[in-house]
């Protein structure tokens, strides 16, 4: 009996609830005659486009800066690169990769600057990073207004600045999703997308097992141990912040192509939270994470949201029930993780 109990607590109570909830949603979906293949297709896409944003949480947690609430920093870098790719009419899969490459120098610069701050506020990283993220989003709101973009399809026809939402039809709308895509029993398999996220997951996995990755891990799990082994704690934290920012930038480009839009201005404000929630649902803690946690968590969380949307809509057509569910689940899981941190090192 106690054996079962131990196993449950090791697996994590909230994970069980979410799995049960997901199961219930799937049952409801069939009961309510919601077309399953379509929903599953959407599931796969949602999981895919959110995966890299989840991976961006890995370096921060490894290096002990905790969950990267400043993910919007990377996202803004990615959006800036995306706008440049649109401005110069880079299309297709090539355009997507071009945007990713362009985003990297921005992310490196932003990450370096930001790590200067984060290395000075050890112990309060989460709170500071949240508000740094918010500040950057607000600052870039001004940026979107005054930056010299002039492609007629991305700026407002009248007035100043970029549009709030930019559809990607003319450039690379779902280009990765559709690459080598095929369907099985009505379920669309976006091979290109899956391939790309697999490559990123694999790279992160490789990194975690490399000498540098192991050094970063030591910094996160025990900074004193790291110091005693001749590791510069601050430079590892800087590296982690830069990598996280780069992944955030690439993540938003993959997200946008799969979604079909770039959303500017206030859209990135809260984007760190679902990514954090997904990683936590996968079994990560604010001090320990694996690639499996990210993959499993993103699958669970995004599938839940993808299936909840049609189910909620057929239950109560008005209002946005699935949005409410998202708010409750994602913040609930973060609260749970915070309350379990006590007694840990940080």
């Amino acid at each position, binding site marked *: 009996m106690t054996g079962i109990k131990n196993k449950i607590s090791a697996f994590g109570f909230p994970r069980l609830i979410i799995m049960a909830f997901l199961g219930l949603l799937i049952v409801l979906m069939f009961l309510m005659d919601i077309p399953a293949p379509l929903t599953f297709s959407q599931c796969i896409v949602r999981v895919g486009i959110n995966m890299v944003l989840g991976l961006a949480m890995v370096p921060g947690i490894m290096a002990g800066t905790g969950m990267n609430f400043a993910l919007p920093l990377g996202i803004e870098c990615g959006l800036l690169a995306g706008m440049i790719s649109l401005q110069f009419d880079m299309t297709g899969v090539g355009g997507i990769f071009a945007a990713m490459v362009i985003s990297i120098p921005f992310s490196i610069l932003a990450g370096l600057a930001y790590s200067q701050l984060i290395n000075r506020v050890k112990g309060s990283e989460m709170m500071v990073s949240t508000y740094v993220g918010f500040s950057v989003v607000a600052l870039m709101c001004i940026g979107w207004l005054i930056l010299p973009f002039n492609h007629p399809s991305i700026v407002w026809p009248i007035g100043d600045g970029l549009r709030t939402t930019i559809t990607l039809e003319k450039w690379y709308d779902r280009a990765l999703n559709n690459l080598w895509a095929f369907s099985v029993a009505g379920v669309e398999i976006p091979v290109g997308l899956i391939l790309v996220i697999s490559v990123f997951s694999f790279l992160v996995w490789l990194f975690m097992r*490399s*000498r540098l990755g*192991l050094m970063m*891990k030591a910094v996160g*799990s*025990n900074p*004193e*141990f790291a110091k005693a*082994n001749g590791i510069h704690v601050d430079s590892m934290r800087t590296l982690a912040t830069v990598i996280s920012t780069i992944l955030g930038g690439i993540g938003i480009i993959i997200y946008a192509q799969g979604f079909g839009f770039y959303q500017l201005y206030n859209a990135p404000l809260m984007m760190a939270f679902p990514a954090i929630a997904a990683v936590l649902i996968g079994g990560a803690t604010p001090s320990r994470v694996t690639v499996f946690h990210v993959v499993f968590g993103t699958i669970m969380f995004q599938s839940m949201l993808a299936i909840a949307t049609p189910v909620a809509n057929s239950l109560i057509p008005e209002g946005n029930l699935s949005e409410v569910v998202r708010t409750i689940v994602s913040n609930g899981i973060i609260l749970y993780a915070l309350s379990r941190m006590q007694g840990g090192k940080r």
Partner: protein
Amino acid sequence: MSSQALLHFKNIKKSFSGNVVLDGVNFEIYPGQVVALAGENGAGKSTLMNILFGMSVIHDTGGYEGEIIFEGKNVQIQSPQEAMALGIGMVHQEFMLLPGFTVARNIKLNRENLVPSVVSRIAGKNYELLDQGAIIGDAKKALKRLGMEINPQTTVDKLPVGHMQFVEIAREIDKKNLKLLVLDEPTAVLTESEAERFLECIRKVADEGIAVIFISHRLDEVMELADSVVILRDGQMVFSEKTANTNKHEIAELMVGRKLEAESLINVNRNLPEDYILEVSHFKVNMPGEKSKDVSFRVKRGEIFGIGGLAGHGKTSISNGIFGMYPATGTVTYEGKQLQYGRVGEALKKGMAFVSEDRKGVGLLLEEPISLNMVYTDMRVNRHFLKKYVFFSQFDSQSSGQIVDEMIRELDIRCTGPEQPVGRLSGGNQQKVCVARALITKPKILFVSEPTRGIDIGAKQILLNYLVKINKELGITIVMTSSELNELRSVCDRIAIIGQGIVQGILKPDSPNVDFALLMSGEGKENSNDRNKE
């Protein structure tokens, strides 16, 4: 002195999971008497005080045996609050003072003088107003009883450190029912003149009829202040006598105690050549709580060099300083070259290795498996156990497996396998992993701090034997820091005793007990200089 004892410890026994830490402690204290409680670190003093204060560490580990008689009644103290209610007060080593509050408010903390307000008549005592005048008045009175001129309205953070101790005592004597005051190494942070004043102050308290238990390592103070002395050693009460009937040397001798068997001193008569692998001079390390001020010594190649001394006097800071864990100044010469110890990882690169005294805090990655912990330093410093690809490397668990298995066998590490997380191991086995980690880097010189702290006897012996073995067979020079003098004496060639942040003297393992004890209590400097030069 009244005829009835205020407090009587009757045959007190205590063990932590089978480890006996107190055995048969018996002594009495009378009102107005000052009893000095002496003994080495780990002799059981703090455990005895924890029992007296009903701390939860005691109850959580199965309570204690024996009786405590307070004012003629058998008492079972369950919590510090109960102890306070009985009239037992304690001044801790760390100050229990709120820096932003005034001296007066600190003295009256949670015993403030209150006056009812309009709101409190309805909403309760929480809303009564503080009576600032009465608080300041009481504080003034208490400070005056100690003969101290401290303005009760200054905030504590503006107070010199030396005065804080007095504020703490003022807080205790302000309690109307105070009958017994326990002082835990109260003079450790005080300058000489402050300490003198402090002793006067304690005398005044005792003259008011309050009994005092005085824990101190400074034997001069013990002799000056205490009416009687109780000495604990390895949990046993070895001495209880009037101060008048004893002397400093006897106390020192008794504290260290144990007769050592001649054959247990392994390295007492090794004559090593005058070839110094490490020279430390005027080394000063700023390690909080363990500061060293000016340390100089030389270590011979192939030697086992011991560093001993009391906690808080700076012995552990030396190896920490050499490995860049805390800021330090002074010169360290290793193999004839100056060591840039300030640079993180420099010592490791030069072929030195370190086993920290803080096993869990510094020595291990608790959530990671034994194998990774063991090879970590070698992987990090010497880039071993890695598979190299074009532009990245991967940890190679196969090549590390062999040496890990070997170490597990060699050190007899009890585990389910090399992949068990070290956090699940017992303290002794964790320590073995730390030693293995250091040795896998194949160091020329190994620093080990407190290698046997908090581990069982079996593991202790294995570790010490192993250190002796690698020293003999592989010729690894060892610098061993330990609070356990006997352990140092049993394996070392020479032992430096650190006190007040400097080297008080360097002794051979077979030097008389009393020499060790006097050096430790900081009284050996003058007569140890000649020994230092040997």
